């Protein structure tokens, strides 16, 4: 589903964010990306979303070669991916409901059908009561969960999450991970960037470890649990 082949990313200012990274994540797999701040986790996810393009190497996601993607294809490509952004990226002049409905609106869903899906997604993250609120009136953790609801509402094939539990307490974090695991069980491919080491440790999932842009470890889950 996602395949990195000797990917390097150097930003315009010369910053080497990723160096020669190769790995593959398949459908039905939930993988974590960890590493220190500035290790290149967000950059890696941005490459998959075609927000940034790799400086060298070949990147294939959802069957599309992202080194050779046209701007028209980019929009279509992103519609197949649900993303939780590190900085939430919510629309501040729209209600929680409308924010979560945005991907459905873009795909052209029937309003009543969309409404059902939006409420189901909000229910999953425990925000059903806040559907009429505006993002500015929500706590950081609540905003984060709106972002998670928006990422899953369209039942995408790939879910990317950048620090989805950064603002959440342990109980909420566990709930969010449970939502992710539900999607994993129906064949969705998930890639979660997190520096919450204890959470990652506890979960016993596949873990990719980045250090200064290099992939220094690819830990498979321990078979004993």
């Amino acid at each position, binding site marked *: 589903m996602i395949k990195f082949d000797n990917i390097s990313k150097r930003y315009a200012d010369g910053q080497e964010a990723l160096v020669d990274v190769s790995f593959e994540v398949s*459908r*039905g797999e939930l993988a974590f990306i960890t590493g220190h701040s500035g290790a290149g986790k967000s950059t890696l996810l941005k490459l998959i*979303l075609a*927000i940034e393009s790799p400086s060298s190497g070949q990147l294939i996601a959802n069957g599309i070669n992202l080194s050779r993607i046209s*701007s*028209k294809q980019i*929009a*279509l*490509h*992103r*519609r*197949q*991916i649900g*993303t939780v*952004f590190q900085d939430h*990226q*919510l*629309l*501040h*002049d729209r209600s929680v409901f409308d924010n979560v409905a*945005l*991907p459905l609106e*873009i*795909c*052209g*869903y*029937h*309003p009543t*059908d969309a409404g059902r899906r939006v409420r189901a997604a909000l229910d999953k993250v425990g925000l059903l009561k806040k559907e009429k609120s505006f993002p500015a009136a929500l706590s950081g953790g609540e905003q984060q969960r709106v972002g998670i609801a*928006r990422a899953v509402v*369209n*039942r*995408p*094939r790939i879910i990317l999450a950048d620090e989805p539990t950064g603002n959440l307490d342990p109980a909420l974090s566990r709930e969010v991970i449970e939502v992710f695991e539900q999607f994993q*069980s*129906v*064949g969705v491919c998930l890639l979660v960037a997190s520096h919450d080491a204890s959470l990652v440790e506890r979960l016993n999932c596949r873990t990719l470890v980045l250090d200064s842009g290099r992939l220094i470890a690819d830990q498979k889950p321990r078979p004993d649990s």
Partner: protein
Amino acid sequence: MSVSKRSQAAAPKPQVKSRPKPNTRVGRNESFSDLLQIHRRLAKNSGRRLVQTPVSSFITVFVIAVSLLLPALLFSLNSNLTSVLAGFEDSAQVTLYLHAGISDADAKEVSNDLLSLETMNYASYISPAQALDEFGTATGLENLLQEMASNPLPGAIVVTPANVSPTAVDDLVRQLQDLPEVDLVQIDSRWLQRLAAISELVGAIGRVLSLIVILGLFFIVGNTIKLAVENRKAEIRVIKLVGGSDMFAARAFLYTGLFYGLGGGILAIALQGIVLVTFNSSLEALMQLYEGDFQLRGFSLANGLVVVLAGATIGWTAALLTSLRHIRGISP
């Protein structure tokens, strides 16, 4: 992947297409009422944004209205001239003043000869005595004139040509000038030809001005939309991040452009009305001098509709082109 969940999910395109027809519509807004709902919402949002900044919105609408007003006034002036001309069209009159000393009988014969020509609609002889009579009645100098020893007025034949185009009339005049009995030929409707030429000029200026105004409106609306796109950069970025196309992001601005154009068009009609009413009162005074009952028209429904439609079309198109261009430049 489990099959049951998969079929509910936003499935890949080929799978959706191969399904029987009724199912392809599930979850897709293709019905008319859905579209209506979406457009009502877009229109409402655009309208709300315009009302939120009333002063700058009004300034834009006003500038559009004034731009539309100039060609609209020219065209209405022109259509007035044209209608004046149409009223006089078949009255191109030519008067032939005869040499002194031509007898009434001879003159009548000439007149009858002229009437028998195909190029002539009407010909009538006015004898010197008749002319004097009419002049006396018109001026109120009958008594004075009766005391004159001899009649100074020549006989005249008034003719109306069948073909009233300027060249045809000129040809005819040359022909008539050659008649031995004729002293002087005078076209009574020269002013009509001048008016026709002026009307043509006004029309041409109007067309050129329209082109310039259309270009100008594109810049005005385009610049306003550019600022609107700039103001909503963050929102457009989010839309792009979750897979919205440029066109999807542009939709929000189309109604803005449309509303600017519509508002400008409607205001232009109102301003045109004010201008015409103001002109009409002074024109009435002028027309009374000429004993005419001529009124400035140009406030026809069709005329107004053209102005509003032109405004709306230009506004919408300019919004589409500029918003797409600027949205393309925004990257997440």
